[in-house]
């Protein structure tokens, strides 16, 4: 049951950063609502413009997740069976994405991808 100090530091850095990303906007929004008597803000108010800037931050998420997806699927260059791995990955990802679009269930999508990848890799 070993725990390395550098891992704890990494987890704390990401954990605290993630917590602040959840807590600070929530706290600010609640404070703003309290000041305005619980009424929603006008879209052209400074806060509304701030929300637009926050929206722009959403563009980071698909870029990073798409890059992670590509990096996790691309094989090690020159490794034996690299193209079979890539073909099995694509064969599993397409139905998994369909399952997610159809049912929107994270666990079911992961399960679909894992099972189909296992079957495709076994058949290859």
């Amino acid at each position, binding site marked *: 049951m070993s725990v390395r100090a550098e891992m704890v530091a*990494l*987890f704390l850095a990401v*954990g605290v*950063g993630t917590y602040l990303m959840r*807590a600070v906007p929530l706290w600010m929004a609640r404070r703003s609502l309290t000041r305005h008597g619980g009424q929603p803000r006008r879209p052209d108010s400074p806060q509304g413009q701030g929300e637009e800037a926050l929206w722009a931050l959403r563009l980071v998420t698909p870029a*990073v997740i798409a890059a992670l997806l590509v*990096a*996790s699927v691309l094989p090690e260059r020159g490794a034996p069976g690299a193209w079979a791995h890539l073909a099995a990955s694509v064969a599993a990802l397409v139905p998994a994405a369909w399952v997610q679009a159809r049912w929107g269930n994270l666990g079911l*999508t*992961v399960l679909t991808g894992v099972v189909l990848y296992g079957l495709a890799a076994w058949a290859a």
Partner: protein
Amino acid sequence: MARGSFAAGVRAAAPIAAGYLPAAVAFGVAARQTGLSAAEAVLMSVIVYAGASQFALTGMIGAGLPGPAAALAGLAINVRHLLYGPALAPVMPPMGGGGLALSAFGLTDEVFAVASALLPGRPASRYWLLGLEAAAYGAWVGGTWLGAAGGGALAARFPAAAAAMSFALPALFAALLTPLLAGNGGSGRRREAAALRASAAAGAAVAVVSWLGGWQRWGVLAAGLAGPLVGWAWWRRPDGGGSGGRP
């Protein structure tokens, strides 16, 4: 009243827990396969509690990415969480600073989705939200422990299953990416979806170029910078009408 509200929140978390458990077990197995101990895998779930960045962190730890770069990439994935608090605040029940601080910790993608859908129709009670979050958190941490503690034995006994489980990471990323790319609603929504798709396409392209160039370690960070720029440019292009209307 408090106990009843808390229990109702726990019951409302059942679909979240059903989704979290297999994903968390897969995370526990993947974490062990990348060299983390069972305690480290569970500790990551306890402290970070953000599925996508946890999977990404294990991948980057396995690839030997330096700690600060891994932390930055892990945080970049969670940037979307900035949006959840302001969106949920108007429908949240009254609570003090302590309750607010506690409820912020559990504000994951799925908790946000369920809370924002169910809170408007409920009598105001902070205990319902805390019950929802506690059950989701328990499922995630418990599932991680199951995968990390039992995953090694399963991998030794069923190597084919272990190889298949290694695909949980790409499958999770596909699951997270799919709804981001789905466009619906009016023209503003279509433009937003197009910008998100442009950002994702740019991120994927950067990852491929990094792979071709042999700089895989830096591909995710580069994608996190280049993708939003392309998405923003797409949203602001004149024929997209990006200067008008709420995104």
